[in-house]
């Protein structure tokens, strides 16, 4: 128990030292090219297995005075050496470019997109990509054929997510050598608060006049449906009907069903994060229902409206509420 704990703490210490060193050599940038400066090769556990195999065969050759068995052990040694070269050659020259990220909710996997291009004529095999906190993605690349890869990173908190070091590694060709690097890609994603169901925020301020009805055409006939036409917003599809296998219908006059709603910070009494989560929840609900909604935060206010951009603006404000970029970056 103790030894394993010691081991673990040693590993952590070693990792932190290593990461610091790597960070120095791989500064934050939009594009990285893998060269001998930032690619590292090191034998792994399978490499140790190979060493043991070599030793066994060498002992056989030595004890039986058999030059050919010795030759096999020497062949394995040279294969080991060649594996280092080839493992390096597999990743060398790889260009990694930050493309972008799509926002997500805290706790979700945030999708970061990067572009990989290899100049290697024979392509690039078995490349494993991962963020420190995310699933491993394995890709194979063809020569000079840029491919965009989505590498997910788990988010925990709202705000800006800087995924930190991207680990790129490959065990190709023989598994005995791990060729790897950490690079700092200039990527960030907005993480919206995790939606949590809660009391509906009520209007507290006296902005009665803004609660006027924004009626639009067809508003008199709640629940009237028409057949879905390509181009209709997916948000207005009557999913319940679709689920009953009645076909796709568009709710034409949904928006008139509701009056304007306010996502009012002051109307809720939860702790801050919880409050933001509930507001997020209702923003999504209103958008889904086609209700016009506005946001009222202590220092920011967005007038009621609806639509994708509006939702994004509101979620962005909720995500960055009282949270500056720097704070997150440092953590």
């Amino acid at each position, binding site marked *: 128990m103790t030894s394993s704990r010691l081991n673990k703490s040693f590993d952590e210490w070693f990792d932190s030292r290593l990461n610091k060193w790597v960070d120095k050599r791989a500064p934050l940038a939009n594009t990285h090219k893998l060269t001998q400066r930032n690619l590292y090769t090191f034998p792994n556990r399978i490499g140790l297995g190979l060493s043991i*195999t070599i030793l066994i065969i060498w002992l056989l050759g030595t004890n039986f005075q058999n030059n050919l068995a010795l030759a096999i052990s020497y062949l394995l040694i040279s294969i080991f050496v060649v594996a280092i070269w080839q493992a390096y050659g597999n990743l060398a020259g790889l260009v990694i470019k930050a493309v972008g990220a799509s926002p997500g909710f805290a706790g979700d996997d945030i999708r970061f997109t990067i572009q990989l291009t290899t100049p290697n004529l024979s392509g690039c095999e078995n490349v494993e990509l991962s963020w420190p906190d995310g699933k*491993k993605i*394995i890709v194979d690349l063809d*020569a000079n054929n840029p491919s965009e890869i989505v590498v997910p990173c788990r988010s925990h908190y709202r705000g800006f997510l800087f995924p930190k070091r991207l680990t790129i590694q490959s065990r190709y060709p023989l598994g005995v050598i791990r060729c790897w690097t950490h690079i700092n890609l200039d990527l960030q994603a907005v993480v919206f608060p995790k939606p949590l169901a809660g009391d509906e925020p009520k209007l507290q301020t006296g902005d009665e006049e803004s609660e006027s009805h924004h009626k639009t055409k067809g508003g008199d006939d709640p629940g009237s449906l028409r057949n879905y036409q390509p181009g209709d917003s997916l948000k207005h599809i009557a999913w319940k009907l679709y689920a009953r296998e009645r076909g796709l219908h568009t709710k034409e006059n949904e928006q008139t069903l509701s009056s304007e709603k306010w996502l009012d910070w002051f109307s809720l009494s939860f702790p801050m994060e919880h409050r933001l989560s509930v507001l997020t929840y209702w923003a999504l609900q209103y958008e889904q229902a086609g209700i016009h909604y506005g946001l009222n935060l202590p220092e920011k206010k967005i007038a009621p409206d609806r639509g994708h951009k509006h939702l994004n603006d509101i979620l962005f404000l909720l995500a960055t509420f009282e949270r500056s970029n720097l704070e997150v970056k440092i953590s």
Partner: protein
Amino acid sequence: MNNSINELPILTRRKIANLLVTQALVVAPILMHLPIWIGALWLAVVSWRWLCLINFFPAPARNLIHIITIGCVIGLYLNFAGRVGMDAALGLLTCTFVLKILEMQSLRDAQLIIFIGFIVTSTQLLLSQTIPAAFYALLSCAFLVGSWRGIYLNREKPIIQSLKRNASVALQSIPIMLIIFIILPRIAPLWTMPDENTPKTGFSEDLSPGDLSQLVRNHEAAFRVSFTDEKPAASELYWRGLVLNAFDGRTWSHAKETNQAKIEKNYSSSSKKTNYQVILEPHGHRWLFSLGQVINVKSDQISFNVTNENLIKSQEIIRQRLDYQVTSQLFDDRRPEFSTKDENLSEDDLNFYTKLPKLGNPQTRAMVSEWLRQGLSPQNIITEMQKKIASEFSYTLQPPGLGNNPIDDFLFLTKRGFCEHFASSFAYVMRSANIPARVVVGYQGGIWNEIENYLLVSQADAHAWVEVWINNHWQRIDPTAAVAPNRIETGIDDALTQNDQALLSRRWQQSPWLWAIQKRWDAAGYAWQKFVLNYDNKNRESFIETLLGSSDPWKLGLNLIAIIFVTTIFVTGYNWLTKRNRSLSTQDKLVRVLEKKLKIKGYYRNSNESLSRFCQRVAIHEPALSRQLNLISKQAETSLYATSTFDPRELKRLIYQLKVS
């Protein structure tokens, strides 16, 4: 970060199929050396795994695998009767190798199979070290590396491409292997390995009529000899192996070491000496072969002693190919062959060397008494006997059977025999005449291989002759030489009748080119043995010395660094040269050609200048080219926006047609 193996690519069908084929190749030569049930086990496992692969059969349960494993261990125990030897270890290794493939599920299992595969391949080489065996092992390694690489390859590639990449691993690693092989010092065995049972080949420890005539039908090599100086004449090449000094009426055997005094080492400088190196095939006995009188023997591999009978005898049974150097004094007419210090046999020895069974062979005894009564001297008796053989006897591989008095039957009835008949009866006659005599078994002659300059002595050259004590020395007398002089001068084939030669069935000797191939093949095997299998620290030193002029460690290191340095520069330069151009697209390459052409005219493209801009600029100064340049820039532009569908041929045509001079 989750580093678990599950995240890795799984073991696909293709990978398993690769491993099955590779395993079959690796294990096949081993199975021939093992009990048959291990072969059956392998076949069952492969079929089972194959049926799993095509989803015909469920994967075996873990418990079942355990039961099979225990069964195998019990089977091995029963088979080898609890003996812990090389064979049992090989059996265990093979069973592990075979069973592992049954329970293989993860990439790690596959990796383990590859590693065991390499160990099994090296045991192939413990069983046989011939050139074909070495190539087979190399092939096994190639397949192992291929499957190994396949484990870490996610996508299927065209066969040609994967072969190419496998070959690149081989081409890069084999030179490194050779360098290591040449420069790494060899170390003495760290511990002695358990004894194996080397099959006994060649002649046995005693000699009965018919033994050698069976043996000579075998064409296997017995040993190969290279001479430092000139090769002695064929009639000198009596390779002494074993002295038989006791006769029981039918069989000659080796009874005891006589207490004859040690051979004195006062060799006259005038006598003919010869130095030679023998590479002996393992024969499962202790005797080594030598010519004439042994003066000096050297061998790094074994310890040995020279007996009173002037034979080299190893302390251990010869299980490995053995290489030893001998200096011998050849038979010289003017000098006795084997002189002893007190140039007389003791009374005991005299009795011992003339001892015969009291009864039997009355006709022979009568003949000898008659000679003795006539007062013939020992020398006369020898001559008389040789005359008798030369006139009345014939040499054949198919001697008639002999009755209860074999010597009588042979000398007076059948009169046809092979060398053991002549030697046996000759020695018998000598002993009856009270002349000390003994039978020597060994080989006579050999085939000279002029390609590698060595003498190949094979079982077909097995021979027996007689040594008699006369004039205070042991003198060699070959009765066969009297009846078949060709046997001594040119070899057994010329001495036999057509009928007998067919029995030897050296068919390849009848066709000259087959014979040449055979000779070449044996020469290759000899060179292989001499330069590869026997490569040891001594060879290493001399080889490095011829290569570098000295074998000082610092010089070696310096050279090694130089080699690595030059190779690195070469490889990097090659990569740089090829990558620079090859990584460019076709269009870019064509643009390069265009730029070069215009450079001749004195136009340089600025680094920030687009191609169309550049073309326009040149067109202003070169109105003759303006139409063409216009077309080119248009084509090139199209290419930029239609990469996948663009056909570069038009652009190529335009650029190559551009006349600049």
